[in-house]
């Protein structure tokens, strides 16, 4: 800790000097504040949007350029035959064919052949058998419980909605996985392609969901296939990343064994490399599925039918009880999909010897139960379509429960909300709003420089300059303020919780399990409790952000503290450290780099959630992006998306570099 202090002291003036100087200028130069109609250029970038941003030029008209490019792509005919938009729509039509099939199987049926959709008994039974096969009875129980909920609580059509969402996922997830896999393989095999792909993945993974949606609306249109395509684009990057990591981490010996056996290149790839990297690749599939689910829910904004759509409508109408019921369904599906795909990733092949039935027990059980289910369906319509009169709904009770809950807490929550606004959020907001853009550029540049790399300094300064010149500086600073406020609260909650959890094995397990579950929820879900408790305000947005993005803070703190080498701890105890000294003098300094990484992740999570929180009416970049969505303004959507991405990437570059430098100073492998 002392070391950090000396570093800061030594560089204090270099890093903060120009920033503070430019900041203090507001007391000297007359129109150096946001309240003036034409603020000084050194304070707010010229041609920025100050209040309502209708159409804004910005210092550099990125938006116009992008829109011109989009127009060009819409009109220009490749080889004089078809336009880019025709091309994308053509692809969309192919996607639609697959979608027709999965939708027919899951909820529409094949009317031309007079066949209905797959009856619920099949889905339930096969899910349970699959659970047994993948991991055992616990997983089977989870799957069974999930689908039983969907069947039972289907008074308002949760079953059909779920099937719609699942139909979309079962098209988009395999597509995204396939694209990610191919790109990953190509990147490993062709160094030059990797140099191109890696930064692309960085940007793609920090663009907010809505930027994708807007572009998809322009090039594909709205509705289910558009949602699926947006989802595919959104979900493939983690797959590509994990494929690259998996293939790179195969032990050199295994590859040599393949070469020495005389494998050709294709044999190497399909018989040695992909099977040997099976687990990381399948974890990529797991990630893809989770991203797909998150995006399918959000794709409701461009007319994707399914759970997300109905959730959105209920939320807009503040019908919280019904929204809650759908939310539970989304959460259950999320946990089930996550656990099933994780089990698939970690499944080892099992040795079974004996006759056919003994070797393939699950296959035989499946066939057997399919036969039984078919018979049941023909005997009784009950098994074909679960009758509506047996379904239940708790929404009325939930509504009342939520109402009385919030009513009883109305006064304390209100006091808390107002207190937060007046004493924490508003002052913080005005601090961020009063920061001059020139100062911020110099500030990040100085940090980049101090971390020892001219390249880093230039990169982060360029990122900030892009935001400043795009015209959305003021909005961006509100976003930064929201993220920063959430980060502070997350740290105040997450670090102590992490310390508490790292003390005992049992606590660690418990807390990490809870983190796991929370992380599987699609981010949109977190708006539900936020609206319930704090209605619509900055506080509710921050509340939603904080629950979602505390997860990595806790996780990394626990990880950092538990990873302090046992020897060092024993050495400290034998030197006579008390518990408190052990924590503050030994464990925390060693875990600090990891905690910084946690803060970085928290920041990314927060940035994503801020964008979604625009739905409950914050006035930062997210509001603009929502506006761009409703006007199908692709240029604006993309540029704002890039602003968000660059906020994230600036912080990411600096924090990751800082952490890895600290790690190497401490002698940890980076």
């Amino acid at each position: 800790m002392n070391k950090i202090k000396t570093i800061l002291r030594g560089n204090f003036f270099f890093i903060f000097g120009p920033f503070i100087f430019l900041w203090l200028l507001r007391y000297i130069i007359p129109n150096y504040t946001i309240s003036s109609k034409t603020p000084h250029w050194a304070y707010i970038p010229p041609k920025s949007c100050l209040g309502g941003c209708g159409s804004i030029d910005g210092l550099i008209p990125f938006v116009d350029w992008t829109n011109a490019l989009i127009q060009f792509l819409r009109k220009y005919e490749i080889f004089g035959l078809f336009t880019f938009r025709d091309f994308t729509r053509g692809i969309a039509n192919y996607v639609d064919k697959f979608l027709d099939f999965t939708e027919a199987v899951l909820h529409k049926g094949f009317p031309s052949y007079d066949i209905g959709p797959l009856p619920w008994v099949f889905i339930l039974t096969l899910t349970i058998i699959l659970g047994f096969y993948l991991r055992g009875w616990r997983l089977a129980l989870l799957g069974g419980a999930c689908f039983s909920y969907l069947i039972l609580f289907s008074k308002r059509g949760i079953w059909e909605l779920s099937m719609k969402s699942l139909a979309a996922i079962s098209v988009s997830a395999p597509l995204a996985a396939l694209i990610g896999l191919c790109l990953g393989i190509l990147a490993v095999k062709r160094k030059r392609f990797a140099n191109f792909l890696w930064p692309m993945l960085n940007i793609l993974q920090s663009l907010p969901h809505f930027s994708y949606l807007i572009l998809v609306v322009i090039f594909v249109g709205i509705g289910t296939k558009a949602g699926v395509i947006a989802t595919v684009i959104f979900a493939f990057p983690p797959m590509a990343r994990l494929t690259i990591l998996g293939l790179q981490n195969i032990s050199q010996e295994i590859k040599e064994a393949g070469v020495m056996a005389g494998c050709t290149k294709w044999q190497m790839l399909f018989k040695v490399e992909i099977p040997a990297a099976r687990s990381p690749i399948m974890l990529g599939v797991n990630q893809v599925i989770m991203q797909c689910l998150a995006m399918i829910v959000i794709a409701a904004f461009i007319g994707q039918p399914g759970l997300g759509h109905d959730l959105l409508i209920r939320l807009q109408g503040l019908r919280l009880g019904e929204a809650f019921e759908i939310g539970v369904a989304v959460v259950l599906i999320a946990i089930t999909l996550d656990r099933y795909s994780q089990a698939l990733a970690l499944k080892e092949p099992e040795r079974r010897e004996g006759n056919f039935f003994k070797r393939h027990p699950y296959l035989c059980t499946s066939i057997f139960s399919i036969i039984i289910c078919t018979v049941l369906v023909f005997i009784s319509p009950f098994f074909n379509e679960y009758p509506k009169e047996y379904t239940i709904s708790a929404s009325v009770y939930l509504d009342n429960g939520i109402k009385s809950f919030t009513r009883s807490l109305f006064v304390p929550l209100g006091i808390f909300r107002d207190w937060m606004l007046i004493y924490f959020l508003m002052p913080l907001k005005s601090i961020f709003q009063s920061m001059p853009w020139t100062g911020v550029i110099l500030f990040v540049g100085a940090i980049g420089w101090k971390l020892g790399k001219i390249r880093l300094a230039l990169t982060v300064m360029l990122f900030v300059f892009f935001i400043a010149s795009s015209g959305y500086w003021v909005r961006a600073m509100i976003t930064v303020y929201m993220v920063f406020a959430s980060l502070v609260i997350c740290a105040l909650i997450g670090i102590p919780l992490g310390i508490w959890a790292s003390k005992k094995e049992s606590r660690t397990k418990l807390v990490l399990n809870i983190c796991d579950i929370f992380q599987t929820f699609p981010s949109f879900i977190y708006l539900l409790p936020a609206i319930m408790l704090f209605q619509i305000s900055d506080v509710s947005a921050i509340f939603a952000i904080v629950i979602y993005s505390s997860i990595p803070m806790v996780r990394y703190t626990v990880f950092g503290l538990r990873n302090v080498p046992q020897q060092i701890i024993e050495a400290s105890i034998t030197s006579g450290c008390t518990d408190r000294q052990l924590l503050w003098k030994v464990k925390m300094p060693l875990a600090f780099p990891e905690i910084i990484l946690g803060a970085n992740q928290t920041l990314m999570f927060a940035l994503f959630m801020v964008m979604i929180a625009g739905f409950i009416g914050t006035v930062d970049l997210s509001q603009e992006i929502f506006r761009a969505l409703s006007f199908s303004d692709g240029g604006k959507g993309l540029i704002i998306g890039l602003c968000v991405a660059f906020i994230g990437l600036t912080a990411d570059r600096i924090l990751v570099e800082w952490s890895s430098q600290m790690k190497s100073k401490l002698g940890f492998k980076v």
Partner: protein
Amino acid sequence: MKNEAKISCKNIWKLYGEAPEKFLKNTNNNPTTEEIKKNNYIPAVRDASIDVNTGEILVIMGLSGSGKSTLLRCMSKLIEPTHGQVFFEGNDLLKASEKELIDIRRHKMGMVFQHFALLPHRTVLQNVAFPLEVQGQEIQKREERAKDVIKLVGLEGREKYYPRELSGGQQQRVGLARSLAVEPDVWFLDEPFSALDPLIRKEMQNEFLRLQSMLKKTIVFITHDFDEAIRLADRIAIMYEGLIVQVGTPEELITKPATDYVAEFTKDIPRSKLLNAESIMNEKDKKPYENTVNYSDKIEKIASKVLKSESIFSVVDDNKEIIGSVSKKELIKALFAEDKNE
């Protein structure tokens, strides 16, 4: 001699760094240690020339970082040498096309790895049959062959097991079986027993010797364990910082170490178990004495009778011809070699 060499390495260099080919060219393919260091190159193998004779066990011995694994990989062209030539059965391996290389590896080479390098998603049987599978052999034929090899290494009944279900020793048996499945001419073993417990290691060394007594392959065996080297080797090549310091039979290394480095290795080896009468005898003294010893008798066998008697023993070869003599003097000199300087 020329046609006896199965593999012949000529002036192999492997340097790591920027544009090493150019650097080598500029220094006439013979840079000094200082030059290499000054230009920030990391030398893995330096000017290594060595022949592997048909049917012999050549052990390449050296500590970690001495370049032994790199040299082995140059022999199979898993690593492309920066400079030099590798002849495999007289053909220049470095000029061979990708297709020819695949063909050679499929039929003539087998390799065993330190960490076994088994494919985790395949059963023992499928692992062993893997080299045959990539050749395109039919499933029935290759599994039959694989079963034979599995039997050979003593893993019968474990065909359906997955690697993770086996102990380290058993996994390396699978590795041995896989490398033997194609009936290779040359068998490369890269520290095959280093990752095993000492007891298992001993057992596996015996297994290896048993297999070799039946199969008579040409073998290049890498190890960092000198005991293992003298136990298994016909000839040993000692490497140090990329250079081959000395090549010779175990006896030669012990009796005539080329450098202090080699001497340091051989110092702690129990000579009585290794040296035979021939290697310590006085070659000039060919007089017939009353008692004789065979030239191949190890010292530990003859020591007590030579030391007990005051007389000199004749050393005879298989044809009972006298080729030298041994007395207390030679025996003591051989056993306490460290004192030779005094």
